[in-house]
């Protein structure tokens, strides 16, 4: 990959959870293939959005990236070093650099700890990050950075709204000055108006601290606002990955097209112009992944070949010669460009481009 240096390289990442039968003599009878061969590269200062429906393995991927889980196979290289093989002190020092922001601001903050203790807790684990006497001041600075009143340091989580709690979670993620933040559905528990505030905050923090983000969400429109590149996951694998324009304006994988077309559109006129693909059925169980292409059981294009051959995540042959935006990695034997998002609609009447920040 050309361009800026990669900060995180993930290759062949697999996480299977064994299913066993028997109490004394445990016998493995299968596995939940939560993550089943994921590759991507994250460049410094970049935001990679990962989208997919529930059960596609995106949260397991997040937990693997921050080393909360050990992978079954594959590697995660942080600045060239494979962090899945590290342990002890070396692992601890890498962990400082990859922090996580969780989805649910109601359950990810300990209700018995004050905000100051929550945000300052990373310093207990990594005391070298801040000398004892300075911690309180650091925590207050962090609260200020995420747009909370530093005076709130002695309050408890229940005294805050959902959006404010998510800001506390972000402040905690920032405490160790990490280089990468993995955010797992950071705004999906929030109201629309508050969602926008938190997204804008994440964007401005990225500029301020030069952070790289892996932003995991199920909402394609949110992901578009924050991501430089987007990967679409289905049943443990990335099925299509590319720049924002490549994925949203020139998707070639049928699953991406269906996902895009299903995003609710509030504008009645844009809705009429848009094509809707409604997928039948549900996502198959990750214990029993279909042979060949894993999307074939819900795909309207599936043919015999799809059941036999696993499509690789690569630029499909028919697009290889053209240098256009359709030439990006897509794991489909019958990839076809199809635009499902109508061209940018004119702004609402009376609406000027807004530059307001939360």
């Amino acid at each position: 990959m050309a361009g800026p240096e990669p900060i995180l390289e993930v290759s062949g990442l697999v996480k299977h959870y064994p299913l066993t039968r028997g109490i004394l003599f445990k016998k493995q009878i299968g596995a939940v293939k939560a993550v089943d061969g994921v590759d991507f590269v994250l460049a410094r200062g970049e935001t990679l959005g990962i989208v997919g429906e529930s059960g596609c393995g995106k949260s397991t991927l997040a937990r693997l990236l921050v080393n909360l889980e050990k992978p079954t196979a594959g590697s995660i290289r942080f600045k060239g070093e494979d962090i899945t093989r590290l342990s002890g002190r070396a692992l601890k020092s890498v962990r400082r650099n990859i922090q996580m922001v969780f989805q649910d601001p109601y359950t990810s903050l300990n209700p018995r700890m004050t905000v100051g203790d929550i945000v300052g807790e990373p310093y207990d684990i990594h005391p070298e990050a801040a000398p004892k006497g300075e911690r309180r001041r650091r925590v207050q600075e962090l609260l200020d950075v995420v747009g909370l009143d530093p005076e709130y340091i002695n309050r408890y989580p229940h005294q805050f709204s959902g959006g404010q709690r998510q800001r506390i979670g972000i402040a905690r993620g920032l405490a160790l000055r990490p280089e990468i933040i993995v955010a797992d559905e950071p705004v999906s528990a929030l109201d629309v108006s508050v969602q926008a505030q938190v997204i804008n905050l994440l964007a401005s923090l990225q500029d301020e601290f030069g952070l790289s983000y892996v932003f995991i969400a199920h909402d394609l429109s949110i992901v578009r606002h924050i991501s430089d590149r987007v990967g679409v996951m289905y049943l443990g694998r990335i099925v299509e990955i590319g720049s924002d324009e490549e994925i949203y304006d020139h998707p070639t994988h049928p699953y991406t097209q269906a996902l895009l077309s299903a995003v609710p559109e509030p504008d009645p006129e844009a809705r009429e112009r848009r094509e809707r693909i409604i997928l039948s059925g549900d996502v198959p169980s990750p214990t029993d992944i279909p042979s060949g292409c894993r999307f074939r059981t819900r795909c309207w294009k599936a043919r015999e070949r799809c059941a036999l051959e696993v499509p690789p995540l690569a630029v499909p042959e028919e697009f290889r010669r053209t240098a256009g935006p359709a030439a990006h990695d897509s794991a489909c034997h019958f990839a076809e460009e199809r635009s499902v998002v109508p061209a940018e609609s004119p702004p609402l009447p009376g609406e000027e481009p807004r530059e307001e920040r939360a």
Partner: protein
Amino acid sequence: MLLEVRDLHVEFRMRDGVAKAVNGVGFAVDAGETLAVLGESGSGKSVTAQAVMGILDTPPARITGGEVLFRGQDLLTLKEEERRRVRGAGMAMIFQDALSALNPVLSVGDQLGEMFVVHRGMSKKDARARAVDLMDRVRIPAAAQRVRDYPHQFSGGMRQRIMIAMALALEPALIIADEPTTALDVTVQAQVMDLLADLRREYRMGLILITHDLGVVADVADRIAVMYAGRIVESAPVHDIYKAPAHPYTRALLDSIPRLDHRGRQLYAIKGLPPNLMNIPPGCAFHPRCPMARDVCRTDVPPLYEVVDEGVSERVSACHFWRECLHGRS
């Protein structure tokens, strides 16, 4: 008119004060019509729905005023028993979280069949047959086999279909759906909304959709009522509200929806937080967050003004300056 709610007031008495959750809400729904009630958390949309259904927890809640007229009869003055009869036959509710709304230790067939046994006096066998029939109607594949399954054996989308089947069982005239697709994935959301729209057409039901996401209901709804701090601040046909909102809160809400076709990292964000319901600001409740606020907004509660646009009047707005908002001057 199938359902008419007039000047509904609901309070919650808490240890540290009184939260005014619903403050004079009024709306009407006719047979075959769909009304979407749009609002953020704490706007009073779910409390309104629960008050209409008569399933508020009292205490702490208390209905302090208003009327809920179902086919002209005020449900609030009825005795609990009578009310239950009217409700059972006439209206039904679909909840957000199907997994916790269904009984985990009864098969779905038993839960669906129970409706017919209790309300229609059917035998267990006949009730089972009706349950299969209902599951077919909400397009659950292999209904005859799956009728014995338990809720946890179904996917989220299928569970929500079972909730819909339960609501349909007694062929109600009105269905209230509280965030029916919020817990579902986008591809499944579309399936479930389509099903609701079809069923409404087929049975000519009135439908009230409670939601925080305009995008999800825009296809199905005829009218939208936007709630803020326990009041309806704007109500209009769905096309009009999107094209030209007549209340600054509606406009701000529309602007802050992330859009697939809009690139760029800055999203419009409404400044500040929704008000504390124990301490609603004087005047217009939205004034501390409103870009258009003036002195009068801080003192005078805006009435629901009739919005006359190009000689047509089908909408109302609780903004002193709805004209300016409608015509885009802010």
